[in-house]
């Protein structure tokens, strides 16, 4: 048989196998309800601004807890095992990656979508110089 055909076949088979395998790495964003089976998932939601956030670096700088509301409106406590991210309060949308354990979502990664810093900024006006 032609060598090139063999190679092509090997590549195609390898390709299919890899793609089948890789498709397991991919998922839609989950919500808290779907996370109850304990899998590692990504959840999109918003910060529940009326609930308290706790960050006590003196006790543990790698733990920041807040409440998040997913897109179904379910609210759960999220414990992020990282320092509190900058501009956290300004986030419009949060994506956390982690596992749900009981009633607490343990997150190891966080992505925030913040309103663009430069986009909607007013045209800055020079401060009045000099004293009266």
């Amino acid at each position: 048989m032609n060598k090139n055909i063999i190679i092509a076949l090997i590549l195609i088979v390898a390709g299919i196998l890899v793609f089948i395998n890789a498709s397991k790495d991919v998922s839609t964003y989950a919500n808290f309800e779907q996370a109850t089976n304990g899998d590692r998932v990504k959840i999109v939601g918003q910060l529940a601004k009326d609930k308290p956030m706790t960050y006590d670096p003196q006790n543990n700088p790698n733990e920041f807890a807040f409440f998040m509301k997913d897109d179904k409106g379910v609210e759960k406590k999220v414990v992020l095992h990282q320092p509190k991210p900058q501009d956290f309060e300004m986030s419009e949308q949060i994506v956390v990656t982690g596992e749900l354990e009981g009633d607490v979502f343990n997150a190891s990664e966080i992505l925030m979508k913040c309103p663009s810093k430069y986009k909607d900024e007013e045209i800055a006006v020079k401060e009045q110089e000099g004293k009266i």
Partner: protein
Amino acid sequence: MNEVSYIGEHLWVGQIGHFCVILSFVAALLSAVSYFLSVKNRKNATAVGWSVIGRNAFYLHGLTLFTLIGLIFFAMYNHYYEYSYVFDHVSEDLPLKYILSAFWEGQEGSFMLWMFWHVVLGVILIRKEKTLEAPMLFVFAVAEVILMSMLLGIHLPWGDDAIRIGSNPTTLLRQINEAPIFANADYLSLIKGRGMNPLLQNYWMTIHPPTLFLGFASTIVPFAYAFAGLWLNDHKEWLKKSLTWSLFSAGILGTGILMGSLWAYVALSFGGYWAWDPVENASLVPWITLVAGIHVHLVSKNTGYATRSVYFFYLISFVLILYSTFLTRSGVLGDTSAHAFTEMGLEWQLIFLVLFFFLTGMGLLIYRFKTIKNPEKEEELASREFWMFIGSLVLLFSGILIISSTSLPVFNKIMTYFNPAYEGRVIKDVIGHYNKYQLWIAVFIAVLSGFSLFMRYGAALWPQQKKKFTQRMVISIGISAVLTYLTSLWLEYYSWQFVVMSFTGLFSMVSNLDYIISVVKGNLRVAWSAIAHLGFGMMMIGMLASGLNQKAISTNPFVFKGMFTDEDVKKYVQLIKGKPLFSQGYLITYLSDTLIDRERRYDINFKKLNDSMEVVEEITLHPNAMYSNDFSKVAAFNPDTKHYLTKDIFSCVVSLPPALSSVEDAKKIEDSLKFTTYVLSPNDTIQVGGYTIKASEITFAPTHKEYVKHEHDAGIGVQLSITDPQEDTTYLVEAALGMEGALMYNYPAAIETAGLRVKLAQNTLDDFFTPDDQLEYKEFTIKSNGYIDFEGYRLQLTGFDKEPQHPNYTKQDKDIAIAASINVSGQGMAEDASPIYIIRDNQPMSIKSYSGKSGLHIRFSNIDPVKEEFSFKIAKDKRKTNDISVDIATDVPRTDYLILQATIFPGINLFWGGSILMMLGLFLAAYERYIKNKK
């Protein structure tokens, strides 16, 4: 709308600029058409004429483009904020050295940079390339037409909306913004630029984009060569000429990518050099396909096989560069990437750019496919070309995997067109996903690059060579096995997969080193492929060492373990100023911090201790926090790294106390503090929140460290000693108030560890000082050695100073100024005062002197030169009290800490060294070809 005639605008810059944009676009279009006709009529006499027009039109395009770039620079240099692009990227306080960076920070600027390189490369080709000029420059001109259209800024009516074509860099600020400020004809004197993103204000931003864009631009050359070959149906000539260019292109593009990852590593807080970010991937994949193209190019040149693959790889590399531009600039990546540009509404133009070159290139290839001949005989299994071809396929496979995963957001977007309810897919564990496949591909590549050089094209003399080949391989495998064992003493390989990786990487290094020494006998002129392969193996070992074996030193030993399984979440630690923390064999101390302009620079000391707790090594690193241009919050944390030969120590502040991170938070905290007022007499003691506070002495020349940085008309301070009975510690602090003009400044004392804040009550100054207009001055006249007795104090005149110095007095030309030196004493105090008498323009003036301890205000009111008499006006403060009232807040959040990440990257220099060797191999090869072609 009323027409306002604006003041101070420089409209000519924009008018010439806009003219340049249009002329440049038209010239590129003319050039493309002319070159097209030149190729079409290549058998006729008119071809030369069309080429001349095409060439000159291309020159005109280049000239107008350079003029445009020059004008934008000019406007940026002179801060012409009437232009939106200038306003967005420049500010008063932007150092001149960043003006280049500011230029290519925005989309328009980076398009111009890209076109700039296209023009440079195009002109070189016009000069050098005699036979293929027309079809190649046609490709260049078309690319320039489409790229230039991104700067047109034309709005075409389309139903209810307008379609926008391009974004013009000469657009005026007031054309795209509606703000009340533009009703003011003199608005320019009121606005200041937004300036550059502080994150980008470093030299990397100066060198990385031009290199990367040269890399981007250079991939058009192999594309244009391949395109010319297909168009003219000559599959031989271009292959001879283009290898130098492909090698150069791969070298420079690779260098650009590496610079990006070096930037990420040393200057950004990513804590690594590669994160599989979509933007990184999008520029890596064309490099991979280009390298694959070079390999099949060599095969085709030497044996005639695989010419079709050469076409495919060169065409697709440029298309992938265009695709990467689409990914990064269209906004489609959304929140999946850390560093995509912001949306600009150019999606459709970008899609057109990609599709145009993809469809014409691939269409032409399919059209000509049958005419591209392969040798009848199949490649031998024992031939070099066979394995090079396999290697290229593996590279292609790698590229397809990366670009498919990276394109997931594009896939999601397409799906939502068909089904608006479609839920977008995301990769759950990004880095893990890519590493899983790419590390195995690296293993394949390492093996192939290890043995293929020992084989010959066409399997020449294989029967005789076979034995020698086997011998060399056995030796290399043996040495690599030993080295794998030795490295396992240095690095931890957590599973057999890593052992395989390490072994194959070392095998590639050993066998290519062997090739350099024993086959080409150290002749570097022909060793370039082995150098590049050696670099690849070295890079793999570097990745294993620095990636797999990186160690966080900033692990807090007090966080209880086992609570969370993921190891890498425990890489941050809190450091309190001045309190050493022992972690992972290092004693880490946050020594101090200094604010310089917008940068807060930290001094973090690392002491490495041995088992008997002796210091074996000591370094101080300076990571910093950069505040935003308006100082309202921290914009970026920059790391600092100490480089050793065998490892790097990386440190980065990741978080600061809220009061230091943002003005808003600081204000919130300030507002939440509850101050209670206490009235204290000197040497009184009070108890507050478990602490004993004693007021020692009132001073009128405070020494508070913030107070002394400013000038004041008057000031008052109090020394406090605060005792913590539990810790048995006493803190000595000072709280102060300062007055300048009508403004009062408060300088509170903060005791971080006690969570206490003490400030002088606002009324303290009123209590002690009487405003000048409420004082009752009395005048005294004395001789030059006389004295005055006033309210129990004696004021002794001791001398005069004809060159008086005083913060409120600036000497003018015809001034006559004399200060009197007066010693004030009485009631158990003594103090010097020096009021000043000035004659300016025949008008007498005086600057008073204040003696804080006595509360006396002294003015030097007149000099009688005839009688030699001196007059002074003196008044005394109407002090309401001798007590001092202080406001004290307890439970104040501390501000003397930071959260630190500190990591050791072992063997990271192997990664950089290996990558540099790879690029060096490519450049050496390009240089060799260049010299050869010249001869």
